[in-house]
């Protein structure tokens, strides 16, 4: 337990010391999101319609932006050997790493999302479902992203490969997250169902990805 905390506090401390990385992710999320009103035009109705989709797609791309520093630095400086050999099970290492990634990327994105929502004219009733959907979707991104980062360790152009592996897996998350926001925005109701489905996906990822990530990490160091 204290070993897991040591790893979490090390990763968070490193994240804070290099806080420019976090700022870049959030800025990318906002700036790239703001491009849409310029490209599509300021028609409020259209913006309201695409807002949820834009926010969730931008969150995915922003989270992917930071995945290359999840395992790559540890792999290069030899810490990964130490983590693989540590008394701590490697599955827990994978879980802690994903948690650190979520705290330093997912959480700031959730905080920044309402700003983007304002700029995209997201209607008032849709904010809460949008935040709930993000709160469920970003951990999935961190968990799946950790797996992708572990799988592409040591390969050339790993970042691009990682994106190609992860984004297709993100499609169902996107569908249900946007459906939840739209249900609230159009007043259909039933957003809870979509959010529950998202929660089920998050739990599935939580249960399965640490094992797969640990196997990929063992492969990477051998």
């Amino acid at each position, binding site marked *: 337990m204290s070993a897991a905390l040591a790893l979490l506090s090390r990763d968070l401390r490193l994240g804070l010391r290099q806080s420019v990385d976090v700022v870049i992710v959030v800025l990318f999320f906002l700036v790239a999101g703001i491009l849409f009103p310029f490209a599509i035009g300021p028609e409020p109705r259209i913006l309201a319609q695409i807002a949820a989709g834009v926010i969730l797609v931008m969150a995915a791309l922003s989270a992917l932006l930071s995945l290359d520093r999840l395992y790559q630095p540890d792999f290069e*400086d030899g810490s990964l*050997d130490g983590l693989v050999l540590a*008394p701590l099970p490697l599955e827990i290492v994978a879980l802690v790493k994903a948690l650190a990634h979520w705290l330093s990327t997912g959480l700031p994105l959730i905080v920044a999302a309402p700003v983007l929502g304002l700029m995209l004219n997201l209607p008032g009733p849709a904010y809460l479902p949008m935040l709930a959907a993000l709160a469920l979707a970003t951990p999935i991104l961190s968990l799946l992203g950790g797996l992708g980062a572990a799988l592409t360790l040591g390969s050339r152009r790993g970042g691009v490969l990682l994106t190609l592996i992860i984004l297709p897996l993100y499609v169902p998350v996107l569908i249900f997250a946007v459906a939840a926001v739209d249900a609230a925005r159009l007043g259909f109701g039933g957003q809870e169902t979509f959010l529950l489905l998202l929660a089920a996906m998050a739990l599935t990822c939580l249960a399965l990805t640490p094992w797969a990530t640990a196997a990929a990490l063992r492969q990477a160091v*051998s």
Partner: protein
Amino acid sequence: MVERKFSEDALFEGRRLACQRGERLLFQDLDFVLRTGQALILEGANGSGKSSLLRLAAGLARPAFGGLFWGGAPIGKDAEAHRRRLLYLGHADGLKAGLTVYENLDFWARLTGVTTPLDDALDSFDMAPLADLPARFLSAGQRRRLALTRLSLRPAQPPVLWLLDEPTTALDAAAQATLLALIRRHLVEGGLAMLASHDPLPGLDAQRLRIEDDHAEAAV
């Protein structure tokens, strides 16, 4: 009177080991036997497979042929027990440039279950004056010394098998002497050590294993 910390009958063996990296066979038919209180120095040219042998011994990689045995049982049978009994220091230092000297050591200490204060360990390689310095400002030798400081940590269950990859690289004479003294104490306490080194390591009573250059023999 020396106090034996480890059991008397430790036995670490490699039998008919072969290691393949990519398409190349690094070595084959390699045997070694290491008992309580013994050290083994791996010698050989660059790229002959010294580091690879250490990674096999750590269980990080698997041999292409042959096996590694602890007390007669394959190390893969209880991989967790093997991980707990070894301390592996690779040629990469495993240090984070953004953390201070103390934070770096503290992380490895907490990860491996060390609960005692780190002052003694920091003193061993004279890192205490640099404790608050971010590791990015350390010289190559200082980085190495910080990595080696992990040898002085005293976990509740101290690792009996030390696997050190080029531990003397970039070390000055004083630090080399400290390292040798630490290794000797570890051996006297009944520990085992495997080292890859180009340095002669004077004063260390050890077996030597020469890994032959097998470059001509490409794997088919």
